[in-house]
């Protein structure tokens, strides 16, 4: 049985036909020790889905799901206090902007010790030892000195390491990393990714990595879920999705990677924008932007279907696009 089992997750803001469906019927399974990458444009519902899982969507947002199980326990049936205990201890989250996610009013030592005190009941020397151990694990030099520092006195990379240490404090079984490297520069990015991967492997915890950088996902994840306008459009294992994307949207995302364009050819881009609250098409949500759209795509909404090779795609005509077909050829005339 998978560690996390989400089925039919829906997050809506507002009522009636004008409601915004931020997440629309998301199915997601994560096994213990697995690394799942979630990719998609801004506003595709990646982060909201994770907040819904953690029970942090505030009114007017409403969350519903057919199944929301973590480690066999039904999260929707739990009382808020019990759910908080599970979420605080077994699920942890790392955010995009580390400086903004640390409380500016307290030293990092205090913030690091807070969950240890609250969830594990550590005190005195044991607390101190565990704190230093955590900072050491995230490769912060001279941890004893850093305990007394405030977040604004540390660099972005350091803050992200502290954030990761805080997330690991209670030995979570699932870590959600919401674009953990977006706010960092490239050299620090690769360090943080290596660090996350090492910690994930050492501890055998499951990791959900939200990113819009496909290169990061390719490096880290075993399986990728692609989201578009609140829906899951494709899930596939890692080498396969990059070689043979089944959904036109995934293919377009891959084609848009700058490294795929050659010479002075124009960068490939998907025309149009994600449909908003009021212009959601009746058929496939991608239909207005899809180069391969057929009449059926405009009329009906496709379901997630098996596209072979362990891939599932939300498309009437899933195909295995060979990479050469979507990447523009060199030169250009």
């Amino acid at each position: 049985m998978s560690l996390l089992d989400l089925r039919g997750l829906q997050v809506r803001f507002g009522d009636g036909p004008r409601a915004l469906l931020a997440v629309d019927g998301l199915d997601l399974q994560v096994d213990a020790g697995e690394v799942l990458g979630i990719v998609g444009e801004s506003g595709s519902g990646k982060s909201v889905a994770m907040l819904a899982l953690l029970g942090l969507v505030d009114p007017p947002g409403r969350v519903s799901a057919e199944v929301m199980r973590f480690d066999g326990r039904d999260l929707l049936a739990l009382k808020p206090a019990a759910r908080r205990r599970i979420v605080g201890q077994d699920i942890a989250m790392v955010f995009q902007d580390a400086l903004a996610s640390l409380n500016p009013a307290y030293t990092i030592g205090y913030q690091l010790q807070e969950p240890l005190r609250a969830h594990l009941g550590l005190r005195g020397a044991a607390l101190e030892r565990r704190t230093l151990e955590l900072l050491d694990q995230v490769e912060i030099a001279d941890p004893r000195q850093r305990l007394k520092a405030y977040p604004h006195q540390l660099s972005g990379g350091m803050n992200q390491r502290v954030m990761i240490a805080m997330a690991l404090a209670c030995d979570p079984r699932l870590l959600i990393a919401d674009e953990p490297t977006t706010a960092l520069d490239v050299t620090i990015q690769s360090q943080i990714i290596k660090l996350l991967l090492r910690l994930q492997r050492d501890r055998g915890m499951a990791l959900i990595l939200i990113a819009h950088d496909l290169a990061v996902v390719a490096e880290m994840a075993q399986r990728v879920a692609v989201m578009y306008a609140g829906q899951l459009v494709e899930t596939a294992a890692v080498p396969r999705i990059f070689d043979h994307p089944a959904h036109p949207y995934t293919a377009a995302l891959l084609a848009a990677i700058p490294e795929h364009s050659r010479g002075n050819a124009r960068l490939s881009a998907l025309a149009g924008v994600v449909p908003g609250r009021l212009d959601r098409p009746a058929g496939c949500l991608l239909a207005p932007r899809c180069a391969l759209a057929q009449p059926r795509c405009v009329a009906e909404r496709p379901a997630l279907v098996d596209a072979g090779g362990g891939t599932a795609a939300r498309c009437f005509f899933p195909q295995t696009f060979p990479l050469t077909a979507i990447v523009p050829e060199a030169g250009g005339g």
Partner: protein
Amino acid sequence: MTALACADAEPPSPARELWQSLAASRGALAGFGVLALVICCGLFAPWIAPHDPVLQFRADLLRPPIWSAGGDARYLLGTDELGRDILSRLIHGARISLFIASMSVAMAMLPGIALGLLAALHRNALGALIMRAMDVMLALPGILLAICVIAILGPGLLNTMLAIAIGTLPSYTRLARAAALAELGKDYVTASRVAGAGTLRLMVMTVLPNCMPPLIVNATLGFSSAILEVAGLGFLGLGVQAPTPEWGTMLASARDSLHVAPWVMLMPGLTILVSVLAINLLGDGLRDALDPRLKKVG
């Protein structure tokens, strides 16, 4: 050991940093000095004051200050119409003014912040109710509201504090709500919720410390206006009652002898002016020191 061993540059502690930026402003420093003097006077009044503040020297009525003709070395700032030493009364008055002002600030700040946080947390009906109630209170001038409260409760030390506190409550509520709303949207609040923090802990431990700078500045400025209001109520005869040495009451009783003995009115008036000015200068300095947007780079 190599000669190049780099000394660990310890970042300055927040308290030290605050003091450094405060000391950079002359006005704030001067204000701090004067306020410290007034506070010392208040704390050690019985030992500093040359005479008992209510003791009447019947032989020395309306004696002028020491530097003008007819001055007496025993009464540095002269005596009033009942022969009481003005300096002693001012020193003891500092005690009353500071006590009432600080208590009323505390009595306004604590419930004000609590209401503000509550309004920020519940942005629905409850929040709206709290904020509209505050708007109604803000529509009345503070001194008028204070007079109303005194009229209902009757004059006296505690009621004076209460009257001033009620008048200044809305400003704390509004500030706390605005600051808390801004902070609630930040990632560290979400992070704290992910870590399992409950509502009370979230508001008091996580959000409140980050809302404090504007509230602290408002409190220092509120402190000076509280001193003014204490004096104003005393002048109107609604504050602290007669023999107690209080600056506003002293002003009021000096009205009758204004033409014969102007110093009786001048001395408490100047004391009020200087104290309020000092606190305002300090408040300005604090605002500059606490507000990162006004902070000098480097």
